[in-house]
């Protein structure tokens, strides 16, 4: 199975659960992303829109939004949510972040929230974003980042991939800044948010089998103190950091 097929297989069945997930539907990181939108922006592109939380949140602040995702079920969920909220200036499309189906310089803003850890080749995605952005346009990227402490980075990505086989990697903030610069999108870190993830709902949202959930608990239990401190691990929860980056197309 390819990574793309894995992502679809992972997210198609849980689309409805993501539509109601509090972590995804709201959260301080979403408010920060909306606040970072440029004033009077024209058309925005949301990459990896999932059930549409970000696309619909920004729709009220830009002229129009195009939202893409690999998962058909997520797109159906997103369109339903748009109808429920009476938001019409948003269009949905099945598309791949690494091969964006848009003309050059089509967007003023590109957003990606909680999806970048699925990019198989983030540099290629960022180059595509640079291509479809108008000069002066910006990318607002928000995702869980790995801590600078290498061993905590390893443990975080280990539990992530156990939970979700289509997980590629939570990069560190400095890796993202380097990648953005390499793609011609010099970036700044606008802020970070700590999110406490309760283990039970976090595992349930991905319908993790009991045996795998047990493995994840064991990885946390066996993790050295530095990791437990960095990720604030206890029996019920752990804490991840979400970073919001703004990258500008020169």
């Amino acid at each position: 199975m390819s990574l793309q097929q894995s992502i679809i297989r992972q997210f198609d069945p849980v689309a409805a659960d993501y539509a109601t997930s509090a972590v995804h539907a709201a959260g301080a990181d979403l408010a920060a992303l909306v606040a970072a939108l440029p004033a009077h922006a024209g058309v925005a592109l949301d990459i990896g829109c999932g059930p549409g939380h970000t696309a619909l949140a920004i729709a009220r602040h830009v002229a129009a939004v195009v939202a893409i995702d690999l998962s058909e079920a997520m797109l159906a969920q997103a369109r339903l949510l748009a109808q429920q909220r009476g938001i019409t200036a948003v269009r949905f499309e099945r598309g791949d972040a690494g091969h964006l189906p848009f003309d050059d310089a089509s967007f003023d803003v590109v957003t990606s929230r909680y999806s970048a850890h699925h990019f198989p080749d983030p540099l290629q995605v960022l180059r595509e974003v640079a291509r479809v952005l108008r000069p002066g346009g910006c990318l607002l990227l928000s995702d869980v980042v790995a801590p600078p402490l290498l061993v905590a980075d390893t443990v975080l990505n280990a539990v992530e991939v156990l939970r979700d086989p289509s997980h590629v990697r939570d990069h560190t903030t400095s890796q993202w800044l380097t990648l953005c610069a390499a793609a011609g999108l010099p970036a700044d870190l606008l802020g970070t948010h700590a999110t406490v993830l309760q283990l039970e709902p976090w595992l349930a949202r991905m319908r993790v089998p009991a045996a795998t959930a047990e493995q994840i608990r064991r990885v946390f239990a066996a993790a050295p103190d530095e990791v437990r401190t960095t990720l604030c691990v206890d029996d019920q929860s752990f804490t991840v950091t979400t970073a919001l980056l703004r990258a500008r197309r020169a």
Partner: protein
Amino acid sequence: MWKFLVRLLVLAGLGVLAYALYRAIQQYREDSVFDQGSGAPAAPDAPDAPASNRSISPELLAILADPGDKGPVELVRDADGREWLVNRRNGYRYPVDDGIPIMLLEEGEKHRDEALISA
């Protein structure tokens, strides 16, 4: 005195009506950035379709490109009434499923039709 009051009422009524109309137009403009483009041609196959129709809007069509060669794609309706986005350079056809374009390279390749390539 009576006439003056009636005139005043009529004027006030007109004012309220004008404001309501203004708000309605504003709302319509806000809602129809995609549906009502400046100078863009109307959707070829749905000139009088209802507002809830699930065809691709001209604005989206204008920025859509083939995910591979990034060139333009053309909206084509086949004999069964299905909509496709066609790359005339290589014959790739991308399905439009319930108004949602499926712009994945493997989909385009799967439905490729060489007869659609224009010389």
